[in-house]
Each structure stands twice: as C-alpha cells, then as structure tokens.
C-alpha cells in the first residue's frame, strides 16, 4: 500500500525536481560565479554580483518595482473585494454566469489583452478620442508608456487573482454568522467590519499574495505599456539574460527576488492562520 502511494507521487517529484529544484540550484550557483569579458561563466566563487545589485541605480529599480506592485495589489483589492462580494451574494444561477463572464477574458492570451490596452491608451486610441470628442481636452494626453499605464495594465491583468480567492471565501461564508451578528444588534456596516471582513481575511491574504508576486516580477506589462521607460526588476533580469549576456548578475537579482517572495509567503501564511484575529 505504502509503496503504491509512493509510486503515485513519482510524477510530482520528477516534475518539481526537474523544473523547480534543479533550475533554482543552477540560478543560485550562477549568482556566485565570476564572468569572463565575453560573458562566459567561470566557476569561481565571488560576491561581486550581489554587491553590484546594491548600487543606487539598481536599488531604484527595486524600489519602483515594489511601489508599483504594492499599488497594483491595493488597486486590485479595492476593486476586487466589492466585485467578489456582489458575485458571492448573487443567486446561484446569476452567480455562475457572473463568474463565467469574469473568467472569460482569461481564456484569451495574456499578451493579446495587453496589446489591446496599448490600443486603448495610445495617442489616437479610445480614451483620448472619447475625451476629445467630449471636449474635455484639446489635445491627446500621453497615456501610453507611463507608469500609470503599467499600473492599469497590472490591475487589469491580475484582478481575477484577487477576486477569485476572496469570492471563494465569501461564497462559503455561513449565513448563520451574519444572522447572528444582526441578531446581536450589529447593523449591516458593523456586521461587515466585525464579522464579514475578518472571516474573509484568509481570502484577502491569498489574493494579495497571488497578485503581489506576479506584479513584482512582471516584465511584459512594463515592457509593452511602459515602453521601456519603466524599468522593473523583471525587465532588469530579462536584460541581463538576453541582452547583456550577464547570467551571473541576472541570477543574483533573481535570487534576491526569490528570497523576497519566500519571505512574503512565509509571513503571510503565518497571518493566514492567525490573520482572522488581526482586524478585531
């Protein structure tokens, strides 16, 4: 019996070893290697790649990445929570339909959706045309290739990752708890703050992680909507591997990011179990 169970675990083990553990080890090892002037890897131990990263120019990139990731996570939460609430409170038939409508765009390619935003935001794009025809502005605004565009693109693309975990918590929430709060004298606002919000905290934490992680490491959105003006961690890593041929430095930045992600995951998983108490 036990042997059979282990046999079933084989695909999982093979997968994680091949596609998670080995690549992680390679990146980690590379990040401590020296580099020849032509970009070849020399297996000689050095801290230089990490020291290089802690220069103001790169720390600025790190800071910008964090600010944008935090902002877009906050944006997703502010839009996503009410959405999740509305969907979860709808009648079952309407609910399934709403979830489907919401998930539908996810089935089109991520790149395509981001290109579509380029079309909407460009100088003679949808938003500028509407604003012009309403005579609110005289000449087109510069919307595309700004940090704002990157922000909008991130919120748009990552919103489902915020809505779905919150929705799944809210839809399972026992109506009995809400009734009990009402029964004990809590009006709808108090019920929300003291019962619904704390009880949906695990969903909020999951949503925050699910949005914050990809937002921190994205490079496509910042590339397409930021037009190379907004350099984020993801872009920096991409450059090091593809243009600068400095895999060692790219690996070092990646390692820093992986450690950050790990810390956030550990901290939040601690809050996820106790988190429900935090808001009370």
């Amino acid at each position, binding site marked *: 019996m036990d042997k059979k169970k282990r046999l079933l675990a084989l695909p999982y083990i093979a997968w994680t070893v091949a596609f998670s553990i080995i690549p992680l080890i390679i990146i980690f090892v590379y990040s401590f290697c020296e580099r020849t002037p032509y970009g070849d890897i020399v297996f000689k131990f050095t801290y230089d790649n990490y020291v290089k990263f802690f220069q103001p120019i790169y720390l600025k990139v790190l800071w910008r990445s964090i600010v944008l990731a935090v902002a877009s996570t906050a944006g997703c939460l502010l839009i996503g929570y009410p959405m999740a609430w509305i969907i979860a409170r709808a009648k079952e038939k309407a609910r399934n339909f709403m979830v489907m409508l919401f998930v539908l765009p996810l089935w089109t390619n991520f790149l395509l959706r981001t290109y579509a935003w380029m079309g909407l935001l460009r100088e003679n794009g949808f938003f500028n045309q509407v604003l012009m025809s309403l005579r609110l502005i005289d000449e087109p605004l510069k919307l595309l290739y700004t940090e704002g565009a990157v922000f909008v693109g991130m919120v748009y693309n990552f919103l489902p990752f915020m809505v779905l975990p919150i929705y799944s918590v809210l839809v399972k929430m026992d109506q009995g708890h809400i009734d009990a709060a009402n029964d*004990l004298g809590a009006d709808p606002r108090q019920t929300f703050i003291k019962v619904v919000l704390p009880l949906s*905290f695990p969903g909020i934490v999951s949503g925050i992680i699910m949005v914050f992680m990809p937002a921190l490491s994205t490079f496509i959105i910042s590339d397409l909507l930021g037009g190379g003006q907004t350099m984020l961690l993801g872009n920096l890593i991409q450059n090091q591997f593809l243009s600068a041929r400095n895999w060692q430095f790219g690996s070092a930045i990646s390692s820093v990011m992986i450690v950050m992600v790990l810390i956030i995951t550990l901290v939040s998983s601690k809050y996820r179990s106790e988190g429900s108490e935090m808001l*009370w």
Partner: protein
Amino acid sequence: MERYILELKDVSMKFEDAEALSGINLKIKHKEFVTLLGPSGCGKSTMLRILGGFLYPTSGKVLFDGTDITDVPPYQRKLNTVFQKYALFPHLNIFDNIAFGLKIKKLPNDEIKQKVKAMLKLVNLEGYERRRVQFLSGGQQQRVAIARALVNEPEVLLLDEPLGALDLQLRKDMQLELKRMQQRLGITFLYVTHDQEEALTMSDRIIVMKDGVIQQDDTPIKIYNEPINHYVADFIGEANMLYGVMREDYKVECEGLIWKCPDKGFEKDEFIELVIRPEDLEMVPEGQGKAQGIVESVVFKGVHYEIVVRDDTGYDWIVQNTKNAQIGSRMGIDFSDDAIQIMRVSPEYRLPAVIEQAGRSIRGELWITQDSEDYVKSGSGSLNAVPKLHTESQGKNITTVFSEDIRRTWVLRTDEYINLSDRLVIRYGAGADSPDGQEVS
C-alpha cells in the same frame, strides 16, 4: 386586557410556490416557555426566523409588547436567538463571542467584563475566556451560544433546536439546565424542536404544527392526554387509535361495545376517532376486560415491555406494561373510562374507495387506522379484506375490516350495507371512484 410579549397576527409565508406558514395566530405571554413542535418542514423554524426578523412574512403582522415590529430589522429587535448550528464567530475567542452584543452597544469595558464573567459562571464555563471556539465540545459551544444571547438581557430568547447536535445524556442535562435558567432569569423562551419528549419536559405550552398550520396549542399535559386529532396523538408518544361512534355524551361505541368515556359535546351518532395511551392499558386474564386478543410480539424497552396484542377484530393494541407476556397466549385488555380521549376524525386519513363484494360494487370511504401515513402517501392500490364488525352512524354504514395482506384493520364508511359473511376487495386512492366496472390501474 392581558399583555402579550410576542404576537403573530394572521402570518403567512410563501416560498416560491410552497406555503411554509398559513394564517398563523399566536400570542405569547411574559416569562412563558413556549415550544413549537413538529417534524422538519412543518414551518416551525420559518416562524422563528420571522420573529427574529430574518424573514419577512408574505402577509400578517408581528407584534412585540403590543408594537408592530414587522418592518423592524433584526438588529433593532429586543430579542435574541440561539441558532441551530450555534453560529459562534470562529475568529473570536469565547470572551469576545459573548461580549459581541455588548461591544456593539458600546458599554464601558468594566461593565462588559463583569457581565461576561457572570454569564460564563451561569453557563458553567468559568476560565474559558481565552479559549478558541473550535476547541470546545458541542455542549460547550452550545452553552457559549446561549450565553452570547442571554448576556444582552433580551426579553425574549428564541431557540432553534439548540440541543439537536448533542448526545442523549447531555441533551437531557441541558434540558433541565435551560428550564432552570429560564425560571431564574424570568425570560420568555420560544423553543423550536422536533423532539416530543423534549417539548413535554421543558414547556409551559406546546404548539404542535403540521404543514405550516397550528394543530394544537395547549399545556404539555393536555397535549398528551387530550390530543385534538390523529396527527397530534400520533406525533406525541405512542397511541392506540380506533374509529368509533359517539352514541351520546359520555358514551362511545367501539369494537361492537359501548364504552364510557369522559368526553361530551359531540353530535349524536357522530363518527369519531378515539385514542388510548399504551401505558393506560392493563393486561387481564382472558374473558375479562374490554377487548380480547392474542399476544403478537413482546419488546423489552428497559422501564417496561412493549406488547402488541391483536384483538378479535384484528386491531393491534400497543400495551406498555412492566409485566412480561407469552407470545401466542390469549389475554384480555382493560382500561379505565378516563383513559379514553375522543377526537374528531381527520379527513387526511380518508381515501376514496370502491368495495367489491359478491359481484356488487359499493362506493365509499376508507378510513385508515394503524401505520396510516404510509398508505396515505402511497396513494392508491387494492386490498383483500374480511369484514369483521358492523355498526351505523348518522345513516352511514360503518364496517371494520381486516386485511390479511397487510395485517391491519381499516374502517369503511358506506351508504350501502356491507354483508359481513362475504370477502371483499377494496380499491382505494386516486382512481378508485372512477365509474363502476372500469379497471383501475
């Protein structure tokens, strides 16, 4: 004029097509312990939810201390609920769960602490303040739920099957504890349960419900001893129920005999149903007593034996007795005149029937006595039967028949006389009263 703390006036509730409550009128006095009793789906929980403000009735009014509160939301009502699944807040510890209502009212911290402490003492959970809800047993959670409601000092406490999830011993302890608490605190309790024993133990008044309609509203003793109809008699405890004819005040004819009874006020020769509780029956030697029969089965129940005696008409009497009996032996059954309770017949237990006897087809009604619900639900069918007894009621022929197929006695009410010497075939239920001679599928 007497003051009532809670009143329902003509309250009806419809869900989509189904009517959950119809025309409920109910008055509850101060400090009364009232129980809503009925099987699941009878509308008792719906009624409680309307009182709590969680459901808005389709029509009718809810009055609290004389004021109309139909439109008042639950959080403004001066009553509290103990929910079926307790609905304790999992993100709060015991103290904060109990303090929830007081914190909403923004009472000073000292007062909250003091009141919660007193409540914990009342429900025997001192020292549990910091525990988490998930780590409590069912009985403890239950007591926290009660404390959380009572700490608000409501004038009325609504309890929705609060003991349903507990095991038997704990349930019995909690029943007594709840009753004591209610008497000590002087609060009106409105209690919902499907457990008739629980209702009898705790209540000042029981309201028996069925299909959204109040069947009987009385004290536990009267509900038990003087059930108003077949349904109530059947739901509360075990009961022997037979059809009979009320010959005059205090005199009923049943099983071909005239029995004295304490009931009056029925029409002359009215077709009635009578109920006798199994513990009121006495086993006597053969030839004595009011009925004669043969012992069919004996089951040991702990305090007593439950003995089934089939009498000569085929009726199965349930007898509860501390004495044992021999299966297959013959004996007499006796009971005092007071043991009889006369009830008006309930039309739900009547099926249209066509009786075929010696080439004749007779239309009439079939009245079901024992284990009747199954036959009412199954709708229609046909039975071979032997006529056993005959009598008359207000111009109708009443014939007791015994069916070997199902080993039950039923009663036929017909215009025509049914010959006692010939066997019968009874076709009953939907389609039975189709034109004569047609096959009933």
